[in-house]
């Protein structure tokens, strides 16, 4: 599964940055404070503009300000549009290692215990990706399932905002 992930990264890394530059998130301006849109946030972080992180592994590496990765319903597969941001975080963690906490979340649909498990899977997918990019920092995974929504509402927009992993 991991090798498949890496393979996917290699094949799509070129388009990833393009995608992140023209993010298709429906209503990014209405996102609430703690959950800014992952893709658009990447380009806001000047030191880590490159998806691969290659030209930013130096003193100037700054952790991206966007810290949220989003997922599809009942899925823990990393989205292609998360890759650039993940790579930026990986680069920052490699440049200045620190303890990381990944908090996995789910939307309110479905059962609470299943969603707790799903949130953990999502956080583990993020961890596996970071490790695959050479991150050696200790990474803790905690899942809140649907208990801690970013947007407290019952609609498609809220559900999308809530299916996430936050890196802390």
């Amino acid at each position, binding site marked *: 599964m991991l090798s498949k992930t890496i393979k996917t990264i290699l094949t799509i890394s070129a388009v990833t940055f393009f995608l992140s530059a023209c993010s298709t998130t429906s209503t990014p301006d209405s996102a609430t404070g703690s959950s800014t849109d992952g893709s658009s946030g990447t380009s806001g972080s000047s030191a880590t503009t490159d998806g691969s992180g290659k030209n930013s592994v130096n003193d100037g590496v700054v952790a991206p300000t966007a810290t949220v990765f989003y997922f599809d319903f009942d899925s823990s597969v990393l989205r292609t549009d998360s890759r650039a941001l993940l790579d930026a975080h990986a680069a920052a963690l490699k440049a200045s290692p620190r303890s990381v906490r990944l908090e996995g979340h789910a939307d309110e649909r*479905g*059962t*609470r*215990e*299943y969603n*707790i*498990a799903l949130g953990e899977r999502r956080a583990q997918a993020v961890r596996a990706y970071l490790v695959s990019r050479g991150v050696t920092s200790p990474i803790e*995974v905690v*899942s809140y399932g649907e208990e*801690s929504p970013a947007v407290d509402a019952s609609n498609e927009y809220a559900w999308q905002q809530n299916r996430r992993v936050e890196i802390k």
Partner: protein
Amino acid sequence: MKKVMKFSIQVIVASFLFVSALSHAELTISITKGVDNPIVIGIVPFNYTGGGPLSENVAAIVSDDLERSGQFGPIAPENMLSYPSLPQDVVFRDWRLLGSEYLVIGDISPTASGYQLVYSLFDVVSQKTILFNQPIVVARDGLRDMAHHVSDKVYEAITGIRGAFSTEIIYVEHQKKARNYRLMRADMDGARPKVLVTSKQPLLSPSWSPDGQSVAYVSFESGRPAIYIQNLATGQREKMTNFKGLNSAPSWSPDGKKLALVLSKDGNPEIYTLDIATKRFTRVTKHFGIDTEPRWTADGKGIIFTSNRGGKPQIYSVVLADGYPQRLTFEGDYNARAQLTPDGKSIIMVHRRNKVFHIATQELATGTVRILTTETDLDESPSIAPNGASLIYATKRNGKGILASVSLDAGSKFALPSTSGDVREPSWSPYF
């Protein structure tokens, strides 16, 4: 089966309004669907021989209990032609005129430390006494217990099914503004709520022990999930698991000696059993998919659980001795959090169809799935009554988490919205 009395619907509404006006509970009852042909019953306001009014209208609580079961249509007191409280005062003709099939009367008197009720139940049609001058004594704060006791006895005498009106529920309340999570205990009608635990971090998955003395639940109070067992009488609690990763979905074995639970300490969510006395863990599932929401079979030899090993969440069963899981559900693309009915013949579960989450039952022998909740969506956390006649579940109404109940024949439904927060994850107690 029974003749539909034209006035009975109005009668039901009237008596319900009367009852709810008296309720001071944080969970308030609203009946969202009654049945078409309930058994018509007269529950005469009980006479009180002491001075002043009682703090509770006992007969009204009985009436409310029986109405919520979906099988009874109580007659509103204002429509009654007479108000007998002693057997010798009953005139059957008064009740036949109202179409009443059964009649309950009672007489409450004060005792040194509380109250005594003497009540009787009559079959109006055959003019026979079913229960004659039955006594029940309660403490001063026990009038609701008195009422639920009468409801249990009347319900069982008429339907042959043991009543579950004296049981309770445990549920989670989220007070969003105060940012409090509270584990709550209340009567099954939502009355007399008590706080068991308050936390700033999520509380979830309460599960009532089979002896009714303890609750197992998950608390994030340390910033990570941990499973606790708490004694309900003393409040004393013990942390059972605190592993890295998930500590989730505790469920008591029928003998109360073990918990089935979910841990991801070995990499992904697996079901384990924990011997509570010896603290020994036994791993039940071994699969890279999500395995969660274990519930025991009645004999304690097997577990049913949710797994996405087939791609989508579905219900599986496993016999603990052989460990080989078998898939139980095939209809719908999301079936989760199943529980066996007390007779072991069916499961209740969360079932998604056309992108809407309902509570459904599936007969195990035939595989037939019936959706019980059609008016609501985002339904979850079903918990069945110990008599198997109805279940309580969590849903949303106007953006707020509420509890609701439905009879297993889906004939009657009622909602229990909270006045002080979002409520969810009800766990129905066993018989006490």
